């Protein structure tokens, strides 16, 4: 294939598809109890310098309890695939991010991310490579398919393409230019789901974003779940399983695990808490105070829920 254009961006994680196959071959396939605390899961499965990805859309279904634990343990030099709002803001605020494959980091309704601005404009995030949203999802899809790249018609002709690590080639079938995005293999994926069993089978209600793709593109996968249910739930309705257990390394029970984000059909997002963060994130000092109060200063997720207050959380529940 004739390469017409090569993006200037660095390939932060190479598409080692054969290595991924070997990894998947040795991954245990037995039905073992994978329930862990968030402290155990994060400590055992995430290392300094890992390439990680979170799955969510906007503030919906954010793996916040797991993210807060990463911040608490100070796991650093992280490389991250970034479509994020609240959880990536926390990692940026805590100075744990070294490199970003970014598509969107912002606060939606509340504007640009102050933490992203500070960390990128100061150069503390050492590498930033831009992609479109679908391009990142398709990079996961390529890995999920077990192929090193996927041809797409996004990004063509733009600076998004120019500064990415994609390539434009002449299509061997049509002769037209087409963009190839490389498979993105995650060291660790983090997904928050509605329900899972102790083995890691999981269901998501409502739209599923890119959960199916990210789960299948992760070497190690940590699930947090609103509730842990019996395996019979999956055996009786297997068409509802979006993540089968063998992809999963740890299952962490985390009611309100997306707080202050939302969980469709279960609870609304916490607008007051989000506004508190938006205000705090404006200055480095108040940002650190927020982290101190809500992350460093609490022991774990249940401690965090106590701090937010059971009555307040009840008020967020959908009827």
């Amino acid at each position: 294939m004739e390469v017409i254009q090569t993006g200037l961006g660095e390939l932060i994680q190479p598409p080692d598809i054969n290595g991924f196959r070997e990894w998947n071959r040795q991954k245990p396939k037995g039905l073992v109890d994978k329930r862990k605390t968030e402290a155990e899961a994060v400590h055992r499965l995430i290392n300094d310098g890992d390439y990680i990805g979170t799955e969510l859309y906007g503030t919906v279904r954010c793996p916040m309890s797991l993210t807060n634990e990463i911040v608490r343990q100070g796991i650093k030099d992280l490389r991250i695939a970034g479509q994020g709002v609240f959880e990536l803001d926390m990692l940026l605020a805590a100075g744990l991010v070294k490199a970003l494959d970014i598509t969107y980091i912002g606060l939606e309704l509340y504007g640009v991310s102050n933490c992203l601005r500070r960390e990128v404009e100061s150069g503390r995030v050492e590498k930033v490579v831009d992609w479109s949203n679908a391009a990142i999802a398709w990079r996961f899809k390529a890995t999920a398919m077990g192929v090193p790249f996927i041809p797409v018609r996004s990004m063509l002709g733009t600076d998004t393409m120019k500064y990415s690590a994609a390539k434009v080639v002449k299509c061997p079938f049509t002769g037209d230019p087409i963009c190839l995005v490389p498979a993105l293999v995650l060291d660790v994926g983090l997904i928050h789901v509605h329900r899972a069993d102790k083995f890691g089978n999981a269901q998501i209600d409502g739209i599923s974003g890119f959960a199916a793709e990210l789960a299948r593109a992760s070497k190690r996968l940590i699930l947090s779940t609103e509730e842990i249910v019996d395996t019979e739930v999956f055996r009786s309705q297997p068409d509802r399983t979006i993540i089968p257990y063998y992809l999963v390394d740890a299952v962490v029970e985390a009611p309100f695990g997306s707080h202050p984000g939302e969980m469709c059909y279960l609870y609304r997002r916490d607008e007051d808490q989000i506004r508190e963060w938006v205000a705090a994130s404006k200055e480095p000092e108040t940002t650190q105070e927020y982290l101190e109060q809500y992350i460093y200063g609490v022991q774990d997720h249940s401690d965090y829920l106590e701090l937010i207050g059971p009555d307040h959380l009840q008020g967020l529940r959908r009827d």
Partner: protein
Amino acid sequence: MMSQTEMPGSNYNPAEMLICTAARLMTDNTTAFIGTGIPMLAASLAQKMHAPNLVTVFEFGGTGAILEELPTCVGGEATFHRAVAASGICDIVETAQRGFIEYGFLGGAQIDPYGNLNSTVIGDYYHPKVRLPGSGGGNDVGSHCWQTIAIMRHDRKRFVEQLDFITTPGFLDGPGARETAGLPPGTGPYRVVTNLALMGYHPESKRMILLATQPGFTVEQVLDFTGFELLLADQVEKNPSPTDEELRILRMEVDRDRLYI
């Protein structure tokens, strides 16, 4: 948020004008890719006015939602409330990629005469003066939808001859450039809606052309607020003000909590 160009004496604000103008561009029984913010309000208003069967399409999986409650983000429950399908981002963008989505509604920090949009950086890419959120779905919408409609605030810092970064493709550098780059033939920018004006694109040169002014603004004011040479339609129309009915629905039904307006 758009008070600097608010028209004195009017009974509506610039955001409301913008939403009503965008809503009027939405057509019943068509598919429309809806981004965060103003497009959501416009789609909701359009469904309650003239386009009850507007098929809203949201990036993270909602197709055909009835917008009764205002979404505050692209993945919220409202984006698939009473929808016909709830899937995921690959399905949605692939639907656009295979030609199923007519209109795409977009925002951006900057736009140029060819309708290219910047939402990535202000200044040098490697040493940005301002690091903006990035493409998100913008580039995908601008690449695959048949016709894209940009919704912007109108000032000289936003309407610029040269972007610092082309995040989302418009007509790139002119006629034929999209096709040369490999983007799907027949796609591209269609309209730009601002608090001051409605614009389209010249059929040959593909440069932005002023089609209509918003109530209270003159052609000269629009040109003055535009940082590049804006072409003029043979007859520049005057957009009608929001009707009482539009304002009532917008305030009482679409954005009851005044999150945006």
